[in-house]
């Protein structure tokens, strides 16, 4: 991604087709994840084979409980896979411990959640800046202003989350996720709590990030309209990829 975010260009929903000339940033092979509920084993992922190229915008769709969120959590290093192989930016998550995955996540992955997940006691400005603090980078006001300007939240920076609309909160969450220029942006139902107008704004932002700044995005959704913004749609059912 370029160092500075600029103004959005023309039709942001149409991305370029450059997949063919890209390198893979995510590769899973026979990926499985089993949760234990008491003595019962509940499989969430059953042999997922999945590749995402750098700069790609992939939407993962499927019914509730099909394993979409679990896949996102595994790809983000939030949880450890039970079996198979997960390579993210060349790093094998199955061989990394919790601390190593945390460090990787800190520098390489940005998350956007359905429920925004902003820290309620901090203003929008500090919610964004804390990502840089955790990463250990010096505060970069130039980049911060660029991100805030691109996402249209400059006037909301001194407000706390309770004083922001859902759309504004989600844009703050996106700003927080991309401030440190992650290799991979993982979005879990980013428009799930938004009305159609705000959903469109958020999707446009993500499209711009992908198209203009080559931000790799994996977005989970069960909204077909949201999925249509992506370059590629992957369908899941019962813990498996059924179409790609």
């Amino acid at each position, binding site marked *: 991604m370029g160092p500075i975010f600029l103004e959005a260009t023309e039709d942001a929903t149409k991305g370029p087709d450059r997949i063919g000339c890209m390198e893979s940033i995510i590769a899973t092979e026979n990926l499985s994840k089993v949760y234990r509920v008491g003595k019962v084993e509940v499989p969430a992922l059953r042999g997922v084979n999945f590749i995402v190229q750098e700069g790609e915008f992939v939407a993962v769709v499927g019914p509730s409980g099909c394993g979409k969120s679990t896949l996102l959590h595994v790809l983000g290093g*939030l*949880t450890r896979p039970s079996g198979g192989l997960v390579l993210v930016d060349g790093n094998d998550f199955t061989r990394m411990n919790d601390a190593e995955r*945390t460090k990787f*996540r*800190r520098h390489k992955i940005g998350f956007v*959640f359905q429920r925004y997940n902003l820290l309620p*006691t901090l203003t929008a400005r*500090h919610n964004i800046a804390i990502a840089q603090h955790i990463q250990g980078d010096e505060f970069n006001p130039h980049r911060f202003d660029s991100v805030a300007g691109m996402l249209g939240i400059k006037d909301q920076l001194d407000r706390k989350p309770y004083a922001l609309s859902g759309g504004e909160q989600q844009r703050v969450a996106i700003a927080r996720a991309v401030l440190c220029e992650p290799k991979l942006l993982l979005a879990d139902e980013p428009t799930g709590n938004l009305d159609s107008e705000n959903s469109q704004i958020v999707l446009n932002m993500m499209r711009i990030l992908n198209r203009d700044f080559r931000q790799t995005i994996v977005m989970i959704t069960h909204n077909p309209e949201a999925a249509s913004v992506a370059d590629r749609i992957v369908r899941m059912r019962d813990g498996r990829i059924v179409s790609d």
Partner: protein
Amino acid sequence: MVYRMIFENILHRPIRTLVSVLAVAIEVGMVMLVVGMTHGMLHENAQRVQGVGADIMVQPPGASLFFALTQAPMPIKIGDRLAEIPHVLAVAPVLFLFNAHGGINLIYGVDLPSFKRVSGGFAYLQGGPFAHPYDILVDDWYARANDIKVGQTLNLLNHEFRVSGIVEHGKGARLFIPLSTAQDLSGAHDKASIFFVKCTDPGYTHDAMNSIRQLLPKDEILSIKEYMSLMTSNDLPALNAFITAMIGVAVGIGFLVIFLSMYTTITERTREIGILKSLGAGKRYIIGVILREASLLSIIGVLAGYGGTWLTRRALLAAFPTLTVELTIHWALWAGLLAIGGSLLGAFYPAVRAARLDPVDSLAYE
């Protein structure tokens, strides 16, 4: 940034903050006041004994440093034999009476002429010496605390005493009655609890003590210097144990309140911890945030404790003028360190627990 987050958290939960700060403040106040009062009263009592002006104290075998606990008085005739020892200038027999009626007081039964030879005599602020057997002298602190005037009657030891004079404080006790009256009241005729011995020169104290030991090998013989050095909590095991126990209780209160406060905070903020983890915050970062929050709470609590202790001391001295509360920088620092240390210890388990939370479960926490 992390301090802003901590500061905002503290402001966001004012009741929790107030309770935590109050607990630490009480902890600090308890340590400082317990130590201040015990040390203060011990030192003040010792200084009063030193103020008698004697160089040596002679007490019966097994006598306590706390005069009120001293039993088995000695024959008064010992005083005459002590007076014959080389380098002894004067001997003052005193009989201790312990009054628990209308307050707890140690009363000195004194023979004014011999007591004057040892102490240089009382400085009368009002009134004068005993004129009758049931006359009493009170010191100025006791008079002020109890609003006593000369000529007033005091009921002590189940008897009526007339206040004949108010004297300057610092001569052993706060209340003095004639030795003969004390002997009558205690049934210890021709007896004394202690002999205060003054040497012709303080340099002869050691020689005089050796001579007294030869004369009274079984009795307790102490120089005033030795007595002063023994009147510290370190040399009084029971008192030291009491202070240690009180400090333990105070630190325990602080520890438990901070533990509970941080534990509930962690539960309440499970989702926020999940957010921090999703942003890449490691275990050390999470533990650091929680411990720094606990430190900030305890530092505010320590400062509030210092202020509260100072105000409580003023209130105590206004209500009980005879009380001595000795607040020292040394114990203020100790109390602060104990409070902060206890708080960090109390916050440690919740911090580790927070650091170990599963990020996926935390993010799903409602």
